[in-house]
């Protein structure tokens, strides 16, 4: 037989085998209490406000902010693009599609981190991936992004870089300098330059 014919037969045979066998659907996600404790200890679920602000500014389509507070609170104030899933409705079937998916990065937030953390724990225990918690909640968001405090003049450079980023991101996301502008009474038309935080690139392939 010609070698290419042998090769073709070999490939088709392998293909037939793989088509005939049942798919391996073992998902190693059921967490034991120890594993969950380990994740809690390493704080893997927390995403810093800077990262979230950066994604918001860049309009990263993978970001899905989820407000787990009550509907009233959500209507009073919410982060841009956020959807409201009150923690009491967390397990309703209509939300399963949003919480159990592999596409987006869900970030829970509440006023502090307590409710958001509860939501994360429940979904994590169900084996859902891609759910995270906004570090410090909305309170910390106000403190860092919408109203950042200037570091002391003796602070290291990194502190200033962080401050600069927070300030520009805060401006872009509609907070921060409103009070200062009203004092100066100068209508600012110029858009603030947005400094974006460096993001780690994933390896990409190609020929």
């Amino acid at each position, binding site marked *: 037989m010609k070698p290419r014919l042998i090769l073709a037969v070999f490939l088709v045979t392998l293909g037939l085998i*793989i088509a005939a066998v049942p798919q391996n659907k073992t998902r190693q996600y059921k967490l034991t209490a120890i594993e969950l404790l380990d994740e809690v200890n390493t704080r893997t679920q927390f995403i810093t406000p800077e990262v979230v602000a950066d994604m918001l500014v860049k309009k990263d389509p993978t970001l899905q902010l989820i407000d787990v507070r009550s509907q009233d609170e959500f209507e009073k104030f919410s982060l841009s693009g956020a959807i409201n899933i009150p923690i009491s409705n967390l397990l309703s079937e209509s939300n399963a599609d949003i919480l159990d998916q592999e596409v987006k990065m869900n970030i829970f937030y509440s006023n502090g981190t307590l409710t958001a953390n509860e939501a994360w724990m429940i979904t994590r225990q169900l084996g859902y991936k891609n759910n995270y918690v906004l570090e410090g909640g909305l309170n910390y968001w106000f403190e860092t992004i919408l109203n950042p405090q200037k570091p002391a003049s003796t602070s290291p450079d990194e502190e200033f870089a962080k401050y600069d980023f927070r300030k520009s991101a805060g401006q872009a996301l509609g907070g921060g300098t409103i009070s200062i502008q009203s004092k100066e009474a100068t209508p600012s038309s110029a858009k603030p330059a947005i400094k974006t935080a460096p993001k780690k690139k994933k390896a990409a392939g190609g020929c």
Partner: protein
Amino acid sequence: MGPLAPNELISENTNLFLAFIIGIGFGFVLEQSGFSSSRKLAGVFYGYDTVVLKVFFTAAITAMLGLLFFSLFGWVDLNLIYVNPTYLYSAIVGGIIMGAGFIIGGYCPGTSFCGASIGKLDAFVFIGGLFIGVMIFGAGFSIWDDLYLAKFLGSPKISESLGLSDGLFGLLLILAALAMFWVAEWAEKKFPREEY
């Protein structure tokens, strides 16, 4: 690289070093197989030389079979494998630009550096064009920002959207590949070109 870098078993620098070694090996094989000739790649579109098509399709089905069998044996968790996310519109536009570049330039980014390393002038011109393109893309990013990020689909699998099992889709792809090889070799006979 593989499971080593994400799990921090090797440092970033070791990772780069290994990439360097693998890159040299890849480039060497590419050059030895004649891919540093722009006629090889352009030949696919004119039908007189379809080696590129056969090589890449073979690589694809080999890797696919390997992953499917590894998953079957429980050696690899397919959920953990990084798949480039799909942004539909930019993939289409990028595909058209890249394909046009293949035909016009006769190189793909990898083979152009291969050709440049043995001193091919057309490869140098191609690399020049590549950098100009990168600069236009970078400088004008705010213009095509919306298109670039439009229609984000995550990492969908064709088998899932067709409602087939991965294995069955694999078999169909193998059959499609074999059929394509047959057509390719027929085209090589039909549109011959003197040796270069």
